[in-house]
């Protein structure tokens, strides 16, 4: 309970140290900026403003979880990290609140409590840029632009639960970012509608490339702190539980905090953060909003499906595909794919190293296309692509197993 308030406070302190009072004014301006992929808030309004925005988005998620009496465990831990991460490049408090409202109305309509849909609401904020696109990019008259954006967000949130469950069945839990597939699927329709209405939804790319020691060290510092807290929490047994986590398949829903331990999950989270940082350093990548956001996301999912053993084959597959097809490893799309491809970690966890590498390879090819399909409005573009790849692999494996593994009867 204490960890996230401290992390959020840490981001605000860092923002003030870097940009002083300009961080707050920049944060306010960010609320009305376009947020579709890839809008690195470090570049659009400065590092300080982006950090304050990340803290505000994380705090919103944290409060929604606490107010609804939901346990802080694997999925909620992943959700807050993910929200904070994407608060650096796409989510703002203004563009995520209508999504929450829509999911709330859906829960009432389905005679459920909001708590039962809270995971969908938290991750459904991936479609925040849709709200911003309607309000600030569609060219609507000022009087109706913001109400139309809010209405669009509420309507979007309302349909997410229905789609999310169907998408789960499509990949059977082998794509960790199921809301990425869900939001991507929905965005295909939303983007078509906006384009039919005359909006070009031209691809933006704001990618911060200024080297900064503070930004390079941000994830390693958080990771080391998590590892220390994990060791303290486990009182000597954390290393054993960390090893036990490496044996998990990771298929949704694998709550490592519940299935194994809190201490082991914290160590795993820190190790995944360090692993991601080392890869980005090796390829000469940038430590900007999207990359730091991606690293925060995979650290969150290290309590909900991702670990070193099931991740490396997928990452290797992505790098092989990039090299085979001469894609620069430092290009924004490849850097993000290297991080977010771990959405397919359960494929390697269940089927082994070579299927994992194949999944990563296919993912790299797909993710370079899916962004334009959905107009950049779904922030979890890698989750969209990962879902399609997982669905393909699951379909083939299921067909093979049901027909070749053994005879039904002697």
């Amino acid at each position, binding site marked *: 309970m204490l960890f996230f308030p401290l992390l959020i406070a840490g981001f605000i302190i860092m923002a003030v140290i870097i940009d002083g009072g300009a961080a707050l004014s920049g944060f306010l301006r960010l609320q009305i900026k376009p947020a579709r992929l890839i809008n690195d808030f470090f570049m659009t309004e400065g590092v300080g403003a982006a950090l304050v925005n990340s803290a505000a988005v994380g705090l919103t998620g944290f409060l929604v979880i606490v107010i609804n009496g939901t346990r802080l465990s694997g999925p909620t831990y992943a959700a807050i990290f993910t929200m904070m991460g994407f608060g650096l490049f796409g989510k703002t408090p203004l563009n995520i609140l209508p999504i929450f409202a829509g999911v709330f109305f859906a829960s009432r309509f389905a005679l459920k409590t909001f708590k*039962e849909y809270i995971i969908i609401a938290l991750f459904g904020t991936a479609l925040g840029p849709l709200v911003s696109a309607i309000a600030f990019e569609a060219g609507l008259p000022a009087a109706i632009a913001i109400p139309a954006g809010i209405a669009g967000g509420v309507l979007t949130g309302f349909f997410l639960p229905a789609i999310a469950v169907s998408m789960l*069945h499509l990949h059977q839990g082998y794509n960790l970012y199921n809301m990425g597939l869900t939001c991507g699927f929905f965005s295909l329709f939303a983007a078509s509608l906006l384009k039919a209405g005359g909006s070009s939804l031209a691809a933006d790319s704001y990618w911060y490339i200024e080297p900064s020691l503070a930004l390079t060290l941000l994830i390693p510092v958080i990771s080391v702190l998590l590892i220390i807290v994990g060791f303290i929490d486990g009182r000597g047994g954390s290393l054993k539980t960390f090893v036990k986590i490496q044996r998990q398949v990771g298929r949704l829903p694998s709550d490592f905090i519940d299935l194994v331990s809190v201490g082991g999950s914290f160590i795993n989270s820190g190790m995944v953060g360090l692993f991601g940082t080392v890869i980005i350093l090796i390829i000469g990548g940038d430590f900007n909003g999207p990359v730091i956001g991606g690293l925060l996301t995979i650290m969150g999912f290290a309590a909900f499906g991702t670990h070193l053993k099931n991740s490396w084959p997928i990452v290797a597959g992505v790098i092989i595909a990039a090299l085979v097809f001469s894609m620069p490893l430092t290009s924004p799309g490849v850097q993000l794919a290297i991080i977010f491809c771990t959405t397919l970690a359960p494929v390697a966890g269940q089927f082994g190293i070579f299927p994992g590498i194949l999944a990563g390879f296919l993912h790299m090819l797909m993710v370079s296309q899916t962004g334009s399909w959905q107009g950049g409005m779904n922030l979890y573009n890698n989750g969209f692509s990962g879902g399609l790849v997982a669905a393909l692999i699951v379909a083939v494996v299921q067909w093979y197993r049901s027909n070749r593994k053994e005879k039904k009867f002697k």
Partner: protein
Amino acid sequence: MRRKDLITHLIGEISSYVLEGDPMRMVISLHQEEDGLHLSVMDDAEHSDDEIEQMEKDLNSQKRPELAGYYGAMTGHDLLGASRLNLLGWQVKHTDITRIDKGIKIDFWLGGDRFDSRQFSIPEQD
């Protein structure tokens, strides 16, 4: 979810789990009341004490509405890979596992808000 769908999915997941043990016999019994139901599954396969302990843990886990309301939809539906008893555990009121002559009997108790556990004689918890 309609009651019929819920029962179908629960039976799908638990029978998938039981059949992974390759039993020669499996019996499924269902008793329904207005505010709840009792589902019993029996098999004749070998089960170690460790396995039964893990089953008890998974099936009587803490209720997780935030997971049951979303990922619970995978119960008895997505059966590629190992069966997952924790999906069932989030949704049932209580589960008993007892050894029988050869194999085990798993009793699931489900009910709504008006569910009266005395009607189904759920054992008192310590």
